[in-house]
């Protein structure tokens, strides 16, 4: 894997759905979460919130099943994109995606999905708690490793101080 990817930390997400609004406004000009490319799955009872978006699979099923080649891989940015001028709104990609990432835009009558906002993902910009990050694919786990190391250092230094 190469390029940058969206990394989501569900432990930080508060379920505010600001990301959905930012995404919707950026792509459609409307403040309408149903037209957003990112969807927050909620388990209110458990207090778990999971922003879900396209995983940009290396071998995407949506690309395989698309009859019009509207859904294709953009190798330059390591992402799968849907060409709005070619999409016919057949919804086959929605059915094929294991993550349920593409969604049907009822206004434009085509299927839409996350395109990393051409390199400046708005969900990342507007996520106040930093639950969504846009990082290099090779380093996507480094934050967690740093946090774990920091935690260990704090514990050890606490023990030494005692």
């Amino acid at each position, binding site marked *: 894997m190469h390029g940058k990817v969206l990394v989501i930390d569900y432990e930080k997400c508060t379920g505010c759905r600001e990301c959905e609004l930012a995404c919707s406004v950026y792509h459609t000009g409307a403040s309408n979460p149903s037209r957003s490319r990112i969807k927050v799955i909620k388990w209110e009872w458990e*207090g778990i919130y999971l922003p879900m978006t396209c995983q940009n699979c290396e071998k995407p099923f949506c690309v395989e099943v698309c*009859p019009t080649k509207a859904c294709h891989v953009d190798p330059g940015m390591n992402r799968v994109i849907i060409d709005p001028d070619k999409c*016919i*709104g057949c919804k086959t990609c929605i059915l094929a*995606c294991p993550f349920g990432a593409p969604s049907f835009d009822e206004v434009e009558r085509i299927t839409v999905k996350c395109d990393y906002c051409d390199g400046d993902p708005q969900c990342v910009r507007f996520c106040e708690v930093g639950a969504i990050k846009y990082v290099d694919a090779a380093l996507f786990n480094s934050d967690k490793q740093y946090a774990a190391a920091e935690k260990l250092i704090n514990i050890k230094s606490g023990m030494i101080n005692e």
Partner: protein
Amino acid sequence: MDWLGYIPDDLRPMILWGPILVAIGALFLVLKLGIKRRFLNTILNPMTSWLSRGFYILSACIVIGTITFLISILPYLGISISDWSPLLTVLDIVGFIFALATAIYTGILIQSVKYVTFWNTSFLPTLYTVSALSTGTITVMMSALAYNIVTASSGYPEQLMAALTLTEQILIIIEAIVLALYLFTRYRGEEYGTYSVRLLLSGNLKYIFWIGIIVSGFFFPVTLEGIYSRLHEQHFLLFLAGAFLLLGGFFIRYATVYAGIKEQHPMQQWVENQRSLNTLKPGTDVT
């Protein structure tokens, strides 16, 4: 060619049903699209997309069916087609291949959805194909019978109707066996396949399954055709059996599509599992 006193060319006008019904079906597929005017874009990816391949298959089926039908009515307009038999044979073979592909294609299209365990099996296209053959055969039988009644002739002799009735009953029994094998393998397979089968047999779709498919699609047609094969004069029995069988064919497709359950995202599955084990309580620290 003469088979049981029946000359196949006489039945050719009945082929009109094929292209018309397939064209109506194709029209519904176009109407389902988000942007209908772009439907021709569908031709762009036949290498990997079954929807794209389907477009070619349906188009070929409609075009060849229409040509075959148009040629078949030429004799009624006083144009002899007696020298055209090689062309007609080729058209028949190619038409048959594409008609069969039309029957199989829908099942393969649905089967290609890898994350719905209930669909991702070759039993599904097999079931759709056998169902297409049985409903197709009864439609031809009803057309032939209607032709006999309307023209007050016996263009389609009793021996032929008896042979077709027997074929039809065998096809329905094969269809029932394929359905049983399909459900058995899905039930014994992965988790979501089991859920789908339960949904059909005892869940929300149980009335569709037991009444729509088993009673209307299998039991009534076989019984009515059995009675009809002994009481040839009671033509309404065949039409009744045909109506039930067509209804059953519709419900087979309806039920198999609606019983498909998509596998859950791993994270979603984890939370659901925790919930069912009752280990997640309000205020539980899930981190």
